[in-house]
């Protein structure tokens, strides 16, 4: 990895009292968390829990109503370009330049990220090979499948080897082979002990396999945070799966049972 994390703080990401509102509706409420060097942090939550709003505030797409976002010590609200240069971002929905081909899109991203042609080409080729992208690199993005678009977004996020990766549901639409590659890439990514990954998902198995720590977000509030062992201790269930922990912390366990019961038999 070529980019050296700058500044006095080696902490890849720290959020302090982050709040985001859409009109009067609070999406994230006073959220504080850190992503440590060498860590994959999983942000878990149901649909509408505030995961994407948190991520959008970090990458500068939404202006927080309160709180602080720091990336390697840099204030994301003041030094926006500096922070964006340190981050690789995979959005939840692939709203891209539909009229460009992936190669043209990656050329644009690499140029904006001030990469040299040789490095950009080498990395693009190795990731494209890993994800088995061939002729698709020259097809307009509008004609590509969701999975291929997701691969393009992942390559764009990894291309400049950023010290912090912000991934919003990155495994959506990927085939099993690509999911496996992505998981291995992420594990290798943080192995050096300097880089960090914030990973949002609502797939508990993935979080269980990948993340050193998870934060459980519910209606914009962080209900619990820590390693799997620590969270098991918190809900007083020694062998609980992450799914069970999640349902207990978000107080949804009884609600799930009631919802399933109310559905009755599928054939009825």
């Amino acid at each position, binding site marked *: 990895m070529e980019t050296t994390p700058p500044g006095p703080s080696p902490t890849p990401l720290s959020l302090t009292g982050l709040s985001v509102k859409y009109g009067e509706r609070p999406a994230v409420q006073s959220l504080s968390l850190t992503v440590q060097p060498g860590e994959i942090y999983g942000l878990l939550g149901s649909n509408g829990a505030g995961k994407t709003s948190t991520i959008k505030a970090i990458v500068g797409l939404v202006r927080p109503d309160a709180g602080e976002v720091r990336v390697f010590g840099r204030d994301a609200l003041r030094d926006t370009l500096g922070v964006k*240069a340190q981050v690789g971002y995979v959005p939840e929905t692939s709203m*891209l330049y539909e*009229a460009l*081909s992936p*190669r043209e899109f990656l050329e644009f991203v690499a*140029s904006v990220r001030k990469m040299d042609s040789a490095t950009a080409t080498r990395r693009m*080729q190795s990731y494209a090979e890993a994800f088995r992208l061939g002729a*698709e690199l020259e097809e*307009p993005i509008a004609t590509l499948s969701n999975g291929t678009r997701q691969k393009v977004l992942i390559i764009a996020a990894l291309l400049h080897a950023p010290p912090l990766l912000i991934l919003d549901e990155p495994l959506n639409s990927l085939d099993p082979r690509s999911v496996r590659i992505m998981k291995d890439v992420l594990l290798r990514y943080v192995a050096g002990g300097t880089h960090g990954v914030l990973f949002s998902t609502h797939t508990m198995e993935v979080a269980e396999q990948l993340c050193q720590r998870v934060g459980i977000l519910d209606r914009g509030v962080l209900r619990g945070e820590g390693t799997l062992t620590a969270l098991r201790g918190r809900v007083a269930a020694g062998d609980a799966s992450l799914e069970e922990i999640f349902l207990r912390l978000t107080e949804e366990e009884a609600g799930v049972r009631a919802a399933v019961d109310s559905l009755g038999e599928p054939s009825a």
Partner: protein
Amino acid sequence: MSWREAFRVSSVGFSELCFQAVYAFRQGNVLPPGRSKNLLARSRRRVIQSKAVIAAVLGLLAFGAAALIHQKSLNPEVLSSIPVGLFESAVLTGLLSLDVALLWWTGVQVVPILISSGVLPVLEPLPIDSRTLRRVAVILYLRLFDLPALTVLIATPFAVALAMGPLAGLATIPGVLVVILYALALSLLTGRFFLRRIQGSRGGGGRAIVRWAYLVLWLVPAFAMFAFITAAPAFFRALATLATQGPSLASGLLVAAFPFSLASLPVIVSAGAGSTAILSPSIDVVLAAAALAYVALAAWAGIWLSRSVRSLLFVPAQRTAALAPGTWTLRTEGSAWAVLRKDLRIASRTPGYAFLILLPILDAAALGLLTYASPSQGPVVTSLALGAVTTAALLATFFGPAFFAIEVLAYSYGRSLPLSNRSVILGKVALITLMYVVGAGMILGFTLLRFFQPFTFGAFVLAELPAVVAAAFLELGLLFRSARRRGLAITNLYSGAWFAVLVSVPGLLLAGLPPLLFDLVLPSGLMLAVGVMAAVAALELALTIPVAFGRGAS
């Protein structure tokens, strides 16, 4: 399911089509604030307004042609050289040609929207039988053209009936029907070509040339009116020559040509075959055979349309050639150049943006040709050419702000990149400058071919250049300031075009002031006029750079 049910289903699809056409939400555009119900009603209203404008133009053309036929005495020069019947046929030929051009132009613009809206693919998985889906597709396609096509169908016979009598009006109907069916079929054909070869075109230099060539072709119908007005005197002169020569192969071909044969039917019905017999002794036979052939072709086009529309509404299956990725390279460059290259690439697959780039350039080419072909003497041609350069500058700066709308296409993702406003502004200013330089260069080339005065023209083009750059800086600076304040992509071409037009006003003033001063000072000497122009333009540039890059802008 019945046609009635198909119409009901298509109404839902058409609402979605209007919404996508106006807000392009599926392409990643940002919706303006407001309740979705209001937005839907607004989008329907805007689509109706757009159709009404096109229909009004078509109606005006019909009644304009009828007035031209009715007021024959206003054209004594033309009528002295060609018979009245031939004149009437020629006018109606022009009318039908313009109708085809304008309907086709409408289709070329709206068919890609129909495809990209994804209306029919949404309906496919529902339990609706194949025949109904085909009917829904046909109805959706026809509704794109309903008001304009109905105007042609009703206004043309009515206007001709007023000018030449009711029988002549009725005799116009076959020609009008053929025109509508041809325009619809051409729209479908070009829509398919657009889908496969333009929007779906792979990268690469050769393919980019094909894309830009198509996009030039795409603009040609828009120039039909201009070309018709320009070419009308030449057409009448050619007709007069043919009429003087008597029957010949060329005049026979003209009688059989589309749409002359169909346009002659009302004339023959009202005045007899003798009115155009001067062109061919067997005019009845030639006209009947040609008209029947065109009607048969139109009937076939109608059947083909009804069978093919449904397949058009699907994006073609992805080709999966297993090529090694190692053959592709990324060539990086500065951020501003990357923005310029990206905009050109997007425009090469998006007619709406290509239109903005090509219009000033094609306009400059047309004006350059006119200047070159003008029979006037030196000073007049010089002022024509300099006026044309000014027009190129004004058009480039008027359409320039719309390029900001490209940033809306992937607004969320684009803002996550470390791309400064300064780079975006520089990229857009480079594009506007490029449009001016290419347009002015074309005029310069044509003019120098006729009058070799490189200093006068070269100095004028160069002196105006800083004013164009200044106008672009001012317009984009104002746009970015407003975008920053309002926190959203305000220049969506569909929902916020008014703002782009508004910021163009000070830009037009900046671009227009130096040429105005040139004209005022010219009587005192050419050198002084160019000097004043250059000084003012440079001053404008110096004053506007802070607007673009100063506090609050970038």
